């Protein structure tokens, strides 16, 4: 951990706290240790009876006991993913040593991203509606399944009355939430809690994801999610994510914040043309724009955390974007999400957490299970932990429907 704020400008956006709830671990340290070990968290679905679905694997968060963290008041009114988000928000604030009660009333905003809302909760209540009648639907359904529910519940829990927002851009959401948070900081907001905890391993969420045709149907957890591999056959979904305390360096100094995980140096988002238009995908443009925003050249990027879609077509698009930016084998590329599956909006937020920890420790965490990377991708894919000097990282994310986002991080000093 660095307390060195040398080289940081007062208007820089810095990350001063994080809360991680991931398949790889509850809390930052457990997540990082398991990630470095290359410990896969992908296994059979346990949150519902998935035996008759074509896809039966997920990256579930193990050992999460909501009653151990939340009051009985919150349990009847929250979906599983909201409970995890609330716990992540507690941990992020504690980690940042930020006490919202000490801030001005509107001093801290909340931005979260989510893909389905509280689907498990909504599924149950819609079953009550059509199975038993409207009088059997919970009053909490009025908000528990909304996209904005995590932002609202976090705001209420911590008394965060600054600007609130909810973004829905699927897997890109974790990065877009941080982009939106930075906009708020630039408008004069001193602090924002931002990120994404997502996932809907429930029959309804499963059906929605199956409809994309991109979910892996491979039953072997070791072979089910193989981005950039010759045998790439789709993705495994998961749950969890990460939330961050973002503030301007000026605000961090003013409150005496000791920790800087790093600086959010650049961010950009693009949108793809419609399928069949013949025009190219815009992932590379997003990455280039994020580098420009960070005032960094491609040669100054030390590691890339890939979106790693896991289908041959999308993998090829990402590999081509990376080749276009960095040249063949031009930069170490990793996809630790091979251990967790794709966590919807939470996935890219978790990648940001992992990238910040990688910068701090000077170790690139591995991509696991990929044993036959396609040579034509010309990627320097990191398949074992690699200790190298790391000052900068590029995180890429693509969301279902054409969203591309890129975020550039620089290390703590």
């Amino acid at each position, binding site marked *: 951990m660095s307390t060195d704020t040398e080289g940081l400008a007062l208007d820089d956006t810095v990350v001063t706290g994080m809360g991680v709830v991931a398949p790889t671990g509850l809390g930052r340290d457990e997540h990082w240790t398991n990630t470095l070990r290359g410990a896969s968290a992908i296994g059979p679905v346990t949150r519902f009876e998935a035996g008759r679905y074509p896809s039966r694997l997920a990256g579930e968060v193990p050992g999460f006991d909501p009653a151990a963290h939340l009051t009985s*008041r919150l349990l009847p009114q929250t979906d599983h993913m909201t409970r995890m988000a609330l716990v992540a928000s507690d941990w992020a604030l504690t980690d940042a040593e930020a006490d919202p009660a000490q801030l001005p009333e509107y001093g801290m905003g909340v931005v979260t991203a989510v893909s389905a809302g509280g689907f498990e909760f909504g599924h149950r209540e819609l079953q009550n509606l059509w199975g038993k009648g409207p009088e*059997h639907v919970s009053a909490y359904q009025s908000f528990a399944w909304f996209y904005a529910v995590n932002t609202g519940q976090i705001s209420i829990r911590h008394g965060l009355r600054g600007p609130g927002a909810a973004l829905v851009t699927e897997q890109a959401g974790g990065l877009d939430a941080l982009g939106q948070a930075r906009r708020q900081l630039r408008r004069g907001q001193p602090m924002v809690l931002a990120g994404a905890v997502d996932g809907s391993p429930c029959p309804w969420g499963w059906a929605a994801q199956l409809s994309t045709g991109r979910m892996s149907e491979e039953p072997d957890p070791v072979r089910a999610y193989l981005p950039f591999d010759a045998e790439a056959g789709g993705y495994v979904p998961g749950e969890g994510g990460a939330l961050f305390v973002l503030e301007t360096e000026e605000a961090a100094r003013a409150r005496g914040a000791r920790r800087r995980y790093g600086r959010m140096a650049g961010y950009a988002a693009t949108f793809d043309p419609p399928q069949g238009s013949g025009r190219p995908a815009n992932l590379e443009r997003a990455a280039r724009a994020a580098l420009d925003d960070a005032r960094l050249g491609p040669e100054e990027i030390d590691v890339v955390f890939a979106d790693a879609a896991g289908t041959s077509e999308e993998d090829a698009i990402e590999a081509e974007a990376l080749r276009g930016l960095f040249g063949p084998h031009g930069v170490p590329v990793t996809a630790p999400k091979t251990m967790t599956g794709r966590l919807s909006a939470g996935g890219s937020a978790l990648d940001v957490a992992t990238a910040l920890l990688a910068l701090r420790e000077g170790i690139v965490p591995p991509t696991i299970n990929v044993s036959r990377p396609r040579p034509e991708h010309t990627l320097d894919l990191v398949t074992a932990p690699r200790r190298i000097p790391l000052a900068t990282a590029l995180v890429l994310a693509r969301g279902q429907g054409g969203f591309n986002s890129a975020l550039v991080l620089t290390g703590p000093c």
Partner: protein
Amino acid sequence: MDQLTTDRLMEIMRICAGEVDPVVTTADPEDIDFADLGYDSLALLETAGRLEREFGVAIGEGELADARTPADLTALINRLLAKTA
């Protein structure tokens, strides 16, 4: 149908909205305002739905708003039960 007791009401409220907040008072819990027990309007709405299903009564919105304590709400349900009997 059996009458509603405040004990049963408090049990239903715990299921619908969690435990009561700790309250420092000598008053009988059934005479404490829902707001002071930590139950907001949504908690009451959820509880009302449950009571309607369990006791087969229809609670008017105005009637629900007028019930400020567990004793009020218990009396209301029992009045409605007596009407339907």
